[in-house]
């Protein structure tokens, strides 16, 4: 991984209709750091994550990855990025393994064994060949986490990843985050509950 991996968000403004959702947000995160974004409902946490992912273009301001504006090297940036929105983003007619094969397979060449390994890590390997529609909300969340894990991306953007997870699942997610950060990864995590992991910095958004 690039030793100088860093993400910068500089003076980002976003309007939604008449609402000024993000008012000059500036943040900076380097390898080995986890940014915990918190704030009341409607403060713009998801909007911020979508701006950082490149899905939403801000009205003004810049997002740079390793010093390059993300719009300039979009494909390169996207391969370094694993985004998990508040929906698990699974095709319910496909199995978790197929879901992962198509989504992770677009980012990098990946073997079935590797995908099964990440499903095993998140504790859903026994449902790998069931249609995703029969999985519970928590299991779907775990499959989404396996997708992030298997993408081997240095930058994780997670929107409410603790939703629907049982206590064992929350513990697992926390340890995955800690491992990722300890291995030199970066993570931006939107979560309501307090996050006290090694390398965590807090970032509050106000409505």
């Amino acid at each position, binding site marked *: *991984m690039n030793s100088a991996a860093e993400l910068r968000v500089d003076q980002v403004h976003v309007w939604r209709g008449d609402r000024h959702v993000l008012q000059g947000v500036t943040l900076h995160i380097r390898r080995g750091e986890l940014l915990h974004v918190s704030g009341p409902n409607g403060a713009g946490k998801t909007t911020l994550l979508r701006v950082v*992912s*490149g*899905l*939403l*273009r801000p009205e003004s301001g810049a997002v740079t990855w390793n010093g390059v504006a993300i719009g300039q090297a*979009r*494909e*390169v940036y*996207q*391969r*370094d*990025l694993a*985004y998990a*929105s508040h*929906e*698990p*983003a*699974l*095709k*319910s*007619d*496909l199995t978790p393994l*197929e879901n992962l094969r*198509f*989504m992770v*397979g*677009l*980012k*990098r*060449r*990946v073997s079935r064994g590797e995908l099964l390994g990440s499903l095993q890590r998140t504790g859903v390997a026994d449902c790998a060949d069931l249609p995703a529609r029969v999985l519970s909300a928590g299991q779907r969340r775990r499959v989404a986490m396996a997708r992030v894990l298997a993408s*081997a*991306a*240095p930058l994780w953007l997670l929107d409410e990843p603790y939703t629907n997870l049982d206590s064992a699942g929350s513990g697992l997610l926390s340890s995955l985050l800690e491992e990722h950060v300890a*291995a*030199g*990864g970066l993570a931006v995590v939107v979560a309501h509950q307090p996050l006290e992991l090694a390398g965590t910095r807090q970032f509050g958004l106000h409505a």
Partner: protein
Amino acid sequence: MSAGVDVGVWRALGLVLERELLLSFRRPDQLLQPLVFFLIVTTLFPLGLSVQLSLLREMAPGVLWVSALLASLLSLDSLFKSDADDGTLEQLALSGQGLVVIVVAKTLAHWLVSGASLVLLAPLVGTALAIPVGAFGTMLASLALGTLTLSWLGAIGAGLTVGLKRGNVILSLIVLPLAMPLLIFGAGATDRAISGTSTGGALYLLGALCVLTCTLAPFAASAALRITLE
């Protein structure tokens, strides 16, 4: 932790194509709906008209083409919608592959499932509509070009309307006017083949429209998708 070996454009194209086809075969009702519609409409016409064979033969190209267009339009609505609803469209847009590649693969898959299967069914329908076997070649060629062009046009419309609640009405309003040339030249080519005159001009024009849409539509559709994703 490495990004691994890069995934090339062809591999990505194949992967998305495989995904779409697999999804269609898991949902056979979506696969069959346009085909059944095509069959029903084309068999209703001879029943509703008088039983004069010459009249039927005269109407056949128009009937065939209008039902093929509408059948193909039926399935366009779901081209991007189901992916947008479950959040996988965002993942595809962030996959590190250009959105254009995704659009091309999804549109080709749509054509294979709805357009190409209509073409395969057309000889049966053609027989029912008393189109002479000698005109089948032109009929199939024009239908293949026409449905492919319609899929590309539809991709633009589907990209623009994917964020709307009742997008399919607006989708038809956007796509059908653009599909008029297809209907005119497609039915025209089949008509000429039945009457035994030269079909070259109409087929070449259909081919030109197909090339035009398949080179420009992917860019227009991916631009439309990018806007609706915001």
